[in-house]
């Protein structure tokens, strides 16, 4: 067994917020969740998805990689506790989720019939104090509904992801991303808005 080089130690420290150097200050509880994509981590304030808050993902159609973007976080969250996916546009396929490392027994898929139910279910999931990550396709949302979701996320100390395929966006979200794909099939994530950062980087993603 070879000794780990400083590079791999750094990589480990970066990848896993539960690890810290023993000589350093007492580790603060990290305020972010690693995204699973190094380039994205580097571009996001704090180095990952915020642990608490609402992320909005704008995309022009389904199937651009918008969901794969959250698979590493979903997989990590499902190992820690329950996660929810609310009103996905098509039936979710278990083998793909399992391949990504999502613990299926921790995942609940809610099939709602109306946008109102979706917003309500997402709010209850966020408020539950147990949910690690909730991803929802809310359809139409009134601005005050987004505000309610934010309060729910900060009370429940959890992260909610809103998928907006219609390109609508709400003010006051913690983080807004735009997911696109160019002609060559490369997936790009643009950080439209991030609290604590003014940069608007454009990141190529392998999804």
């Amino acid at each position, binding site marked *: 067994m070879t000794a780990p080089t400083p590079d791999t130690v750094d990589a480990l420290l970066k990848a896993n917020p539960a690890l810290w150097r023993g000589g350093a200050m007492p580790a603060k509880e990290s305020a972010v969740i690693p995204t699973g994509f190094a380039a994205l981590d580097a571009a996001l304030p704090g180095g990952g998805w915020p642990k608490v808050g609402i992320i909005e993902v704008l995309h*022009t*159609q*389904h*199937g*651009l*990689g*918008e*969901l*794969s973007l959250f698979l590493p976080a979903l997989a990590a969250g499902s190992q820690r*506790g*329950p996660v929810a996916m609310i009103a*996905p*546009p*098509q*039936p*979710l*396929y*278990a*083998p*793909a*989720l*399992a*391949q990504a490392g999502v613990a*299926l*027994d*921790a*995942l*609940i*898929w*809610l*099939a*709602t*019939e109306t946008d109102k*139910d979706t917003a*309500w*279910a997402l709010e*209850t*999931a966020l*408020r*539950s*104090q*147990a*949910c690690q990550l909730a991803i929802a396709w809310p359809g139409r949302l009134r601005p005050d509904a987004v505000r309610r979701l934010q309060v729910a996320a900060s009370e429940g100390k959890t992260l909610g992801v809103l998928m907006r395929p219609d390109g609508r966006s709400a003010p006051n979200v913690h983080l807004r991303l735009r997911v*696109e*794909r*160019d*002609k060559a*099939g490369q*997936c790009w994530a643009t950080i439209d808005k991030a609290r604590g950062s003014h940069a608007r980087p454009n990141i190529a993603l392998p999804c």
Partner: protein
Amino acid sequence: MLTNLAQADLFAPPEVAKPLPPGSAVAAIAPPRPPAPQNTLHKQWLCLHLAQLPLEVFPHFEPDDAVVVTQAAGPRVLVACVSPAVADQGVQAGMTASAAQGLVPGLQLCPRDERAEQRRLHWLARWASRFSSWVSVEPPNTLYLEVAGSARLFGDARELQRSLRAGLGAHGHSAQSAVAHTPRGALWLALHNTDAHPCIDKPEHLPGAISALPTAVLDLPPQRAHRLTRAGLRTLGDLLRMPRDGLARRYGQNLLQQLDQALGKAPQALPAFAPPQRFTANVDLPLPSAAVPRILPAAEHGLKQLCEHLRAHDRAVDRYICLLFHEGRPATRCAVGLRTASRSLPRLLQLLGEHLERQALPAEVVGLRIEALKLLPLAVNNRDWITPPGDDDWLATVERWQARLGDDAVRRLGTHADHRPERASTVNATDAGCWPQSLRPLYLLPKPSPLQVHNNLPIYGGPLTRLHGPERIEQGWWDGTDISRDYYILRDTRGARLWAYQDRRRLGWWLQGVFA
């Protein structure tokens, strides 16, 4: 010959080894000789003997009334139970009614109502369940409570006995009671000591206390009891000094068995009282209303009774029904299901609230009924598939979803060991924990949709680019749904990645999934 029996013989194990019934009084006793010292596994039985029950079931009975309860015995009418006021004037149970009337002019006779007695005894057993987890009913008028486990919660056994009798008094009952380490011992002490309510703390004191009791406490046919007295055997101590075989020959094996049971040397099976398996509470609304905020307080009142009932009997419900009554219309039925059994009022009430908000009420509600048809034991850890381990907040959230969105809307995914893509993913079934290694899409369409073909190539809003494939899947010949397909990962002009296949049997292209 009468005195040469060694005391030690009394503690010899019973001749016939009997399997111990569950909850038997002597499960933990069976002492070798000499009697075991204080044993923490000892049970303690509190016996309540309600001698006045036949009188007390009459709603207007007062102890000062000159009244007796009568019972027909063939052609004669005999006195079965005597009120304290007339007992002093010489009226005794067993004499004929006419003789009693001769002694006390103006004596009131009430025919015995055994069904009311039984109902009352069961009601009291339910009531007594709050003092002990093991209550046993012995008709017509005796209750046994196992109190070793619960006495500490009330101070000690004496204190518990006092609370019990005070509670009985508040309900208009008087009881003779005693505490001992065997049920029969407790019964005999209670029968003999009408007022003292003895409490035997240590098992080694029990033989002494039993020896002092008169033979009248034995449950024997009258002639046999009379023969005992004629033989000069007046106390149980006299009997215990007799040789066992002689006693059995003259007075029956039954006498020995009763003595052994009282001393804890033979088992005595006592069936546990089972509380009724259903609960119903009716509540009227102060004003008819169709508004949920007006109905919920009434429902809360009914649910509160349900929760109290459940707590008293250490039960829980995983389903209950709320019937909403309307004037001149059939009632609206609202069934509330819980993921796991519970008796928490906020949880039951919140779920009902979710249901009522979704329920269309045809008219104003005048009253409601809460029904629980099945009361379950409350298991702390009865979780099921939908509950990730260790979180009650999540459980409550999942329940609210099920209540509002319906059971079908709350889904849990699983994998299934099948190569056919549409069968590899299951909903609300057990997870097989195995999946294919090759790339699979995150969305699978409910049904494959046919793709247009141009120059033998599929198109979907434009030409499609092949990214990966073919992956051939052929399976299912054994159940008639066999497939033979070549799967491809394709990219459409806007960049979305699709999962499509060419059917080798039907010669066409089909879109089945989307990578997202």
